[in-house]
């Protein structure tokens, strides 16, 4: 699946996007763990970041599947 990083998280990880493979069934929390293991800089991400799947806020126990777009979001501050 595609994982996207925004704002300060993109700076910490050094990239805005990555293709990540996790064994299914999987949750967003599994994707976080995999990202933190695999990507240099990603260990600086929080263990429980704000996350979205397919453009919607989700909890970390939300299921993810092939083709999903998973995003890790620094605390949001619209307005």
């Amino acid at each position, binding site marked *: 699946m595609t994982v996207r990083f925004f*704002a300060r998280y993109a700076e910490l990880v050094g990239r805005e996007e990555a293709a990540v493979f996790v064994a299914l069934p999987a949750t967003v929390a599994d994707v976080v763990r995999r990202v933190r293991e695999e990507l240099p800089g990603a260990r600086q991400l929080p263990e429980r970041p*704000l*996350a979205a799947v397919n453009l919607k806020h989700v*909890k970390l126990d939300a299921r993810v599947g092939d083709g999903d777009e998973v*995003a890790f979001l620094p*605390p*949001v*501050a619209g307005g």
Partner: protein
Amino acid sequence: MSAYLSREPISVDALIAQAATPECGGTCLFLGTVRNGPAESGVAAIEYTAYDDMAEAELQRIVADARERWPGARIALRHRLGRVAVGEPSIAIVAAAPHRAQAFEACRYVIEEVKHRLPVWKKELRADGTEVWVDPSGHPTAGPPVRSLYA
């Protein structure tokens, strides 16, 4: 770019006209403006970035939620992206309704939801050339955040 996100300055008059109808006797506008108060000394501008597709979808959901709660209300909204100078509005929300209570409540609802849900981030561009991410409380941020609203 989209219905709600914009890289151009916001026209308040155009936004009010977009929401207005002859049935609406009360219109409430909220403008969020880049500040340069005591706590923001030295800020020249804020650079707004977004998860564009999600921000657009989230704004559509917020407006739909507001319309469901206040069926008579008409809502227009614009959120700036990119560099916004001190004194310029970064967001404008208009709620027009038959009666003023609905207009105030719908407008307030939308800005509160935007503050809590919209995937937008701010970087202060300071007069001395430095840049710093702003956390949601409005203060410059040091380390990585550790909380998640949804986890």
